[in-house]
């Protein structure tokens, strides 16, 4: 194993390690543009040039492998001069239109310029002009003047999305990123090119001009659109989610997420139903307090005349904590009730990230229900015969007309939902729910990775989680079910469900824990810190 010195610090690394990786291990930062840990190495931006004793000229640290006895200087006068020169070349024809560029604020070029160059342009000639605001595909728009030709996007399409839709045409200063003739950048992962673009060349069409990035507040969460559960950042401004961004998680999604998941936040923005409502027989709606609505729901359940005439529709959208509380209700006071499992219908999947199961927590809910002894029938088998009261948790259920009609035929219908939907319309008692970005909790993905869901948005005080309603209903039937925080519930889940054994709330950390990983320490943050430094 070669031993080398970087800025005077000695380190021994594996053979084949690059200088950049070795420096990372020492905590020495080397600026990069084209290097991305998830992609192949191109070494074309030359930003990472470092001085060594093994070569007369500076070497690209992202590409050059370490040698025994190597000495590397990342901060010598020569390296500083080199970086300044590289940045001058990169910025030669750059339009410097930061005020109207969506990348400003999270732009690697901006950061590097202020840190390593900070000199005015010495160009007296007219700048080279290229395509502006060129639509590449449904989600991505290109400004070729801002492009530094690092080819991260080209490599992403070739290596991750396997679609090979982008390329560089022409030579020298006329070089430009574009799609192949007649093709669009329309692969299901296209928007990741926006994330990895170090400058503002590729920007999101959805997010275009909406919010300046420095105004956003972020919270780590989980994308609920399929069973993969990609780790995401929910970026909010004025308490409204503005975009999802994938966050590096080697256990789940690496650096990526699909475009459908990324765009899905819009589905939840409008039509929120935030008030508890009771609907009279003549269709008159009365807004009531949360306590009144829960009381009414409990009364509706009691009015069924025996709990075997009560049907409860659970959802694979429940967090692990909510599922546990609901399972406690269904094994306690409502032990005789019939249980159905709703959720969204299966869709298309692929072998990159997208799963066919379009529900975020089926694995977790199934494990918790199985461990506590709740057996759920599929919602499609709901016929309604002999059911006097139906309790629906969540409104992300794809149900056939016949099932909806069967539910509509049930005299008392308690629905806990988030927004305007067929489920809201058939409610006789409506309990407003929190959305996934308004909850603290955890989801289990299809591989059994339990990840934290963090509250990114403050919900209206009338909105509660499914678990809270289950707990209040259980209490109104005399069950001693009381938890204060999701931590406490998660601890109860960990002790009651064998799959969750040993998992701790705080140990879930940023990357989550896989079933059975309970005793293992949380993964180190090194790769993650690098990712956040150069997205």
């Amino acid at each position, binding site marked *: 194993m070669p031993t080398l010195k970087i800025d005077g610090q000695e380190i021994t690394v594996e053979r084949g390690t690059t200088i950049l990786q070795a420096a990372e291990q020492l905590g020495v930062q080397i600026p990069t543009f084209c290097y991305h840990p998830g992609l192949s190495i191109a070494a074309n931006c030359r930003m990472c040039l470092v001085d060594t004793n093994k070569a007369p000229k500076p070497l690209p640290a992202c590409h050059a492998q370490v040698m025994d006895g190597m000495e590397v200087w990342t901060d010598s006068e020569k390296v500083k001069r080199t970086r300044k020169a590289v940045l001058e070349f990169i910025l030669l024809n750059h*339009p*410097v*239109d*930061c*005020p*109207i560029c969506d990348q*400003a604020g999270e732009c690697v070029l901006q950061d590097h310029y202020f840190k390593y160059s900070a000199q005015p*342009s010495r*160009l007296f*000639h*007219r*700048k080279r002009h290229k395509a*502006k*605001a060129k639509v590449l595909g449904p989600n991505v728009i290109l400004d070729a003047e801002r492009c530094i030709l690092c080819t991260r996007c080209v490599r992403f399409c070739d290596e991750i999305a396997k679609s090979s839709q982008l390329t560089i045409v022409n030579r020298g200063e006329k070089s430009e990123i574009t799609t192949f003739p007649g093709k669009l950048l329309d692969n299901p992962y296209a928007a990741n090119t926006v994330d990895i673009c170090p400058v503002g060349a590729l920007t999101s069409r959805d997010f*275009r*001009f*909406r919010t*300046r990035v*420095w*105004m956003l507040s972020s919270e780590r969460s989980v994308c609920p659109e399929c069973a993969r559960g990609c780790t995401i950042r929910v970026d909010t401004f004025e308490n409204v989610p503005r975009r999802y961004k994938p966050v590096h998680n080697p256990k789940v999604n690496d650096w990526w997420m699909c475009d459908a998941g990324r765009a899905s936040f819009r589905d939840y923005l409008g039509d929120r139903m935030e008030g508890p409502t009771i609907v009279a027989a003549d269709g008159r709606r009365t807004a009531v307090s949360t306590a009144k609505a829960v009381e009414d729901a409990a009364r509706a359940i009691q009015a069924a005349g025996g709990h075997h005439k009560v049907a409860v529709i659970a959802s694979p959208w429940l967090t692990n904590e909510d599922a546990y509380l609901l399972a406690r209700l269904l094994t306690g006071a409502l032990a005789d009730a019939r249980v159905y499992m709703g959720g969204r219908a299966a869709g298309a999947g692929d072998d990159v990230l997208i799963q066919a199961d379009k529900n975020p927590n089926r694995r977790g809910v199934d494990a918790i229900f199985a461990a506590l002894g709740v057996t759920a029938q599929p919602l499609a088998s709901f016929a309604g015969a002999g059911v006097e009261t139906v309790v629906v948790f969540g409104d992300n259920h794809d149900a056939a007309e016949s099932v909806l009609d069967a539910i509509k035929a049930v005299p008392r219908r308690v629905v806990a939902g988030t927004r305007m939907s067929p489920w809201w319309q058939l409610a006789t008692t409506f309990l407003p729910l929190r959305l996934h970005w308004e909850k603290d909790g955890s989801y289990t993905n299809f591989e059994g990775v339990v990840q934290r869901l963090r509250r990114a948005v403050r919900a209206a005080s009338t909105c509660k989680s499914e678990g809270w309603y289950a707990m209040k209903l259980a209490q109104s039937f005399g069950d001693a079910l009381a938890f204060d925080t999701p931590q406490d519930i998660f601890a109860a889940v960990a002790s009651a469900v064998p799959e969750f054994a040993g998992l701790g709330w705080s140990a879930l950390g940023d990357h989550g824990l896989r079933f059975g990983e309970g005793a293992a320490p949380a993964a180190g943050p090194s790769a993650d810190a690098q990712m956040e430094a150069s997205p």
Partner: protein
Amino acid sequence: MATIQVKRRDGLSLAEKLYIPEVMRGMVVTTRQLVKNVFGHQDIATRQYPEVKKAYPERFRGRHRLTWRDDGSVRCVACMLCSTACPANCIHIVAGDRGDEKIEKYPVSFEIDLLVCVYCGMCVEACPCDAIRMDTGTHPMPSFSRDKQRIRKVQLLEEGLPSTARQGGLGT
């Protein structure tokens, strides 16, 4: 040590106690001022306010205005640096796509809540385009509703003027 002579008044003098002479003396002062006001306008300290206004100093930070381009369109590119710099959070901009090759972005709406504004001038400092200025030399006028104090793009442009600063950067 110096000695300070303090002269105390010992009540009213006889002339003052007689009252009438003092009243006459006061009337003389008043009459003199009246004659001066009627026949010699130039020395009056009072300003005839709504008709005659005092010119504010040149660097007075008054009501905002948005400058124009040569073609009369708004110079602002909706970069939000003013609303970022604003310590009172009174600038609300919604950006849109202008469909122009060179300068793609423009403010669809630009609102300043004058009731919230603290007239610090940070927005003017922050603007990279010379698009917002506070050199109208006027202060906000009273109104009967709060909504009237939220001035919008149209009003900001009405007060505006063309800017001669170059836009679009060097080498364009």
